[in-house]
């Protein structure tokens, strides 16, 4: 089956300047990705999955310019004891990074291991990404598997004493970066991964996460505030028996963000929570959370909690699906996506979906879009809280359910501070 001409030329133009790294165990995976990409093509404006978000600037050959934000704000997670791994416009910065040795975890870089003959990464690289293409194609992730330049390869074997912190910096207004991370969590092992910062003018990131029986991974991310940056990120996770995956993302600014999360619950009694808080301002702010969770085992729990605060013409998108396979009895699935529109110009587009083939399940989903509640606002003001402060309080209250998904109080405080900063600046 050939691609339509339009898609073919778009793909050719996009990959024309990209090098396909050769050699080692990853060569076959990259070649496979390229052939899948040739079959699928890149996302186009008419693709159903891109109905609410225009893929043009994510797909075009050159990354649109994005100025580096100059701010005197304390960097995210400052003061949190963590192992730092720094990438500047996608290039690993050894000087700024910590020593990568830590008990309970083995950390390597994709660029270092990709040309080896053998590495466990082979079992994971592109594997979950490939699984995640069905039933909906995610070609930008495939593009990444083929052409990514680097990433971290983390094998969690125990319980490291501190989080592993991926810090993305951006110095070049036109940088176009693809990173691909692999995370393997052994049975009974547990770790926390932090991510923060604007990685590039345009950033395409894939993270493949494989959690064995009884393992746990906490993922906490703050996406960089550069106003014009563009992100397409893909988190693929596969969960074994009694394992746990919790992912929390906060997004402040960014002209275009598409965060896709694809989770497969394959072992009984597993748990997956994905939460997102996003605040956006202005008619060129566009944020899209696209989530696909498959229950394919008994008695698993999944939660999707996404909240967006939008103003001055900002756009928020949520596409979320819970798929319950025939044998996934006793599934507990919850999905909520809500937006708080601070004016009439902003909009929220939501497509919540449930597809259930098992009979003994409890799944619920809801999506709402609304303004600040006038009665609540008046009640606060009648008690002496000034208008702006009352609005902020109600805005944070709106976000509370999603914020509560971030159990670590220190990390939550960091996020809250960033949100409060945004509220006070954007008045």
């Amino acid at each position, binding site marked *: 089956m050939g691609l339509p001409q339009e898609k073919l030329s778009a793909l050719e133009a996009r990959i024309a300047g990209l090098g396909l790294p050769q050699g080692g165990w990853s060569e076959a995976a990259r070649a496979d990705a390229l052939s899948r990409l040739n079959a699928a093509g890149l996302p186009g404006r008419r693709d159903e999955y891109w109905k609410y978000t225009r893929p043009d600037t994510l797909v075009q050959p050159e990354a649109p310019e994005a100025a580096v934000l100059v701010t005197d704000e304390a960097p995210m997670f400052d003061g949190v004891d963590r192992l730092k791994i720094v990438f500047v416009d996608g290039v690993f910065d050894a000087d700024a990074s910590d020593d990568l040795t830590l008990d309970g975890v083995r950390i390597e870089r994709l660029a270092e291991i990709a040309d080896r003959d053998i590495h466990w990464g082979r079992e994971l690289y592109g594997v979950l990404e490939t699984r995640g293409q069905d039933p909906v194609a995610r070609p930008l992730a495939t593009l990444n598997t083929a052409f990514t330049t680097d990433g971290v390869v983390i094998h969690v074997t125990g319980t490291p004493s501190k989080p592993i912190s991926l810090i993305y910096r951006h110095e070049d207004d036109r940088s176009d970066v693809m990173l691909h991370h692999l995370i393997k969590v052994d049975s009974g092992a547990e770790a926390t991964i932090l991510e923060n910062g604007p990685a590039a003018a345009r950033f395409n990131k894939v993270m493949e996460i494989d959690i064995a029986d009884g393992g746990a991974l906490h993922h906490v991310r703050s996406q960089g505030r550069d106003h014009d940056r563009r992100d397409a990120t893909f988190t693929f996770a596969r969960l074994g028996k009694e394992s746990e995956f919790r992912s929390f993302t906060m997004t402040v600014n960014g002209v275009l963000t598409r965060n896709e999360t694809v989770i497969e619950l394959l072992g009984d009694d597993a748990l997956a929570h994905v939460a997102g808080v996003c605040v956006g301002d202005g008619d060129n702010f566009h944020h899209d959370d696209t989530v696909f969770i498959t229950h394919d085992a008994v008695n698993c729990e999944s939660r999707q909690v996404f909240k967006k605060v939008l103003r001055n013409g900002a756009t928020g998108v949520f596409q979320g699906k819970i798929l319950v396979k025939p044998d996934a009895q006793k599934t507990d699935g919850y999905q909520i996506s809500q937006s708080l529109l601070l004016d009439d110009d902003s909009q929220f587009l939501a497509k919540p979906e449930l597809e259930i083939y098992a009979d003994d399940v409890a799944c619920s989903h809801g999506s709402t879009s609304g303004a600040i509640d*006038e*009665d*609540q606002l*008046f*009640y*606060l*003001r*009648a*008690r*002496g*809280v*000034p*208008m702006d*402060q*009352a609005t902020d*309080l*109600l805005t*944070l*209250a*709106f*976000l*509370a*359910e999603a914020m509560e998904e971030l159990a670590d109080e220190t990390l939550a405080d960091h996020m809250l501070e960033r949100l409060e900063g945004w509220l006070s600046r954007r008045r």
Partner: protein
Amino acid sequence: MLKIENLHVKLEEEDKQILKGVNLEVEAGKVHAIMGPNGSGKSTLSYVLSGRDGYEVTEGGATLEGEDLLELEPEERAAAGLFLAFQYPVEIPGVGNMTFLRTALNAQRKARGEEEMSAADFLKLIRAKAKDLKIDADMLKRPVNVGFSGGEKKRNEILQMAMLEPKMCVLDETDSGLDVDAMKLVSDGVNALRAEGRGFLVITHYQRLLDHIKPDVVHIMADGKIVKTGGPELALEVENNGYADILAEVA
């Protein structure tokens, strides 16, 4: 303290006159009660005084210690010392009761140019006041009014009043939904606040509350106006005979 003169109010959205010339003055240290049939405009009066949107003052005015209330934003009225205990307290999911009260208290202090209260002092104070009203620690931690019973909401209003120490307290049917014991707690809370410099305007349908909170003056409101003013005996008359006689007499 609170002076309402010839106050005429209509709804902003529709051409409906609700208050048709209310005259009322509450002196410092006094408790005034307002009774009146459903829909006579009592809550509207309380909302207009506290600055809720949706009403238009077409004539007359209201002052608090000589300051024009109607010119002020709701939060400025609160900082100036006006407090309304809502007939229907509002639930605010996601905002803790304590956070709410501390934010309010410190916002008022800031507006008045006073120093903010420290977290420790605040905690001490609220614990003591909550204890008097039999509000337990759990209720303080919960989101504002969420999941509170009707009576708990009313007690929470009085707790707020006790914490904020306003000069002029307007209580809109704070007794409705209260059981006998809660009525006593709430009344004790109000009586504890009675002071030289503080005025009360108590809106109620029942003599029962006025047994506990002895009013100095009782007003009857009907169809947007104060139609009769008297002493505590007026409330008893309403309790025994309803409004029919009074309304007939002034008609």
